[in-house]
């Protein structure tokens, strides 16, 4: 019988700082084994003696040799992990959860991403998959991203590459002050001002589209309201976050209604949640 609680050891191959007090760790399994996963899946990442916690895998699912986690420093474990350097070791248990098993088969074909906060991390493996597999060729892909300020934008540098294939629109609650604004003509900002939901009125939203939301539940609530008819519950995918311990649907910490986020999620269709009476 396999020990489902025993993690594997992975080596840190690289670590760099990201926005929002985060660090991206690149890992490789110490025993040389591959780490095969679907976009949207997560794993329990830990440091011996400091515990383990669920983190979204943020690298391309097409690379199983090396994989990445974007770790935002909000607690003792995440601070420890974010401070690790090349050659350090961590424990990894997973991949866990459902994830997107077949992004190519999403119906409607077009994909609308709505991202915000640290949940945005999960957008990255999906976008990478779409670009690397060329899925953008036969469908429109639009990414709406809401953040507080410019310094909170995750993967800002990479987004330049994404923009070649994906329509990226960013709304900032506090857009940067434009230096030229005082000398007459204001410089056209790369960003929209406001919340993610303000974008619904300002720009043309891809429709019909499969909607993928990665962010805080409050964002989901307002986006569902704001998009109205454009939301098809069976084609709207929400990524849920909960406290987790076992990651296997036993320990009960992550239960919402009849589901376990760790086992039945973290990707849920809005239809699934509505049918079970789950309030967002």
């Amino acid at each position: 019988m396999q020990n489902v609680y025993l993690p594997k050891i992975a080596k840190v191959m690289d670590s760099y700082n990201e926005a929002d007090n985060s660090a991206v760790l690149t890992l490789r399994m110490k025993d040389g084994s591959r780490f095969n996963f679907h976009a949207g899946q997560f794993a329990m990442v830990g440091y011996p003696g400091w515990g383990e916690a669920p983190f979204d895998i943020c690298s391309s699912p097409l690379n199983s040799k090396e994989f990445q986690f974007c770790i935002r420093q909000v607690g003792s474990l995440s601070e420890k992990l974010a401070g690790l350097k090349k050659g350090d070791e961590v424990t990894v248990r997973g991949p866990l959860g459902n994830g997107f098993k077949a992004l190519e088969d999403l119906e409607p074909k077009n994909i609308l991403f709505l991202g915000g906060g640290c949940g945005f991390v999960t957008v990255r493996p999906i976008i990478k998959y779409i670009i690397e597999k060329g899925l953008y060729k036969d469908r429109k892909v639009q990414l709406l991203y809401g953040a507080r300020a410019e310094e909170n934008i995750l993967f800002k540098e990479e987004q330049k590459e994404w923009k070649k294939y994906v329509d990226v629109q960013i709304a900032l609650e506090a857009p940067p002050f434009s230096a030229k604004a005082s000398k007459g003509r204001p410089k056209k900002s790369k960003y929209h001002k406001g919340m993610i939901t303000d974008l619904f009125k300002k720009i043309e939203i891809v429709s019909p589209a499969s909607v993928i939301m990665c962010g805080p539940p409050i964002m989901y609530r307002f986006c569902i309201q704001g998009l109205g008819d454009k939301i098809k519950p069976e084609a709207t995918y929400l990524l849920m976050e909960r406290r987790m311990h076992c990651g296997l649907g036993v320990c009960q910490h992550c239960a919402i209604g009849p589901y376990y986020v760790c086992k039945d999620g973290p990707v849920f269709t809005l239809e699934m949640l509505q049918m079970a009476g789950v309030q967002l």
Partner: protein
Amino acid sequence: MTSDMIIKFFNCLKAEKYNIYGPEIQDDESDILELQEVPDLKLLEKVSARPYKYHLMPIREVLYKYKDNKLKEEFLKTKKQAFFGMSVFDLKALELYDRVFQNDVYYQNNRKNLLAVGYSSIPAKNYKTIFFTIDEKILENIVFDVFIEGTKFYAQSYKGEKILKKCGLKYKKIDYNPRKEDKKVLAIKKVVETSKDSKLWEELGKICLACGKCTIACPTCFCFDIESVLGPEKKAERCSGNCFYDDFTRIAGGHKFLNNPKDKIFFWYYHKFVRIPHEYGLPGCTDCGRCTAVCPVGIDIEKNIVKLLKEVKNKKR
């Protein structure tokens, strides 16, 4: 007569080097402790105040250690142990544990050394509960190695038969044959599933202290945390969890998903009456009465379910 047979069996277990656990009075309540002699029949006739579960799944157990850059599994070196005098309700809970932890190496390591000995002074079919069906097939619907019903001995497992033969006791073989669909379980599931707006939760939320005594006393409550211990030894431990405590749903950054006693007690009932039957086809509550007995504000699980059942019946009219 009854006690002679029981004493004979008990002493035989002792001679076979079993560590025997059963009800014994400690601090004015019947706890499950290691027994040196056969417990008083009066204690066996009642459901003990505390459950057997902690001797099968300890409050804390080491899962693995990290040493010399390697992870090493740790297993308890369990001796042969017998749970003596488990009630029908306790055995129903054991059946659930076996289902929930069927792929759990740590549980199975402890379970393989357990001899479950049930006891009932009255015919087991005569027990009454609203939570699951008890009829003449009840001994097929629970798991045990040996069951003592008054003066009669039953065996369900090879282990049970072996020990009874060794002790020279006559027994009848009963095969485990779980009920496919229990109408009582399904009816309660349906009612609790759709009860979110019931006033009951409001009322319970006002009086519940979220002290968590009910989950400690409950024989089916199995939720757990996995914690790491930093010290001379780096290790991961599993310890029993409690869904009434604030850290149960707290995530990094401080947000919680269960914020008040009302949501917590609903979560607990939903777990017992909806999620467990849905996943395992078994009742999540066995009606042992322990949670009602320990609740400092007198929350009565059976009364509450009856209330919900009535509410639905009245709505239909």
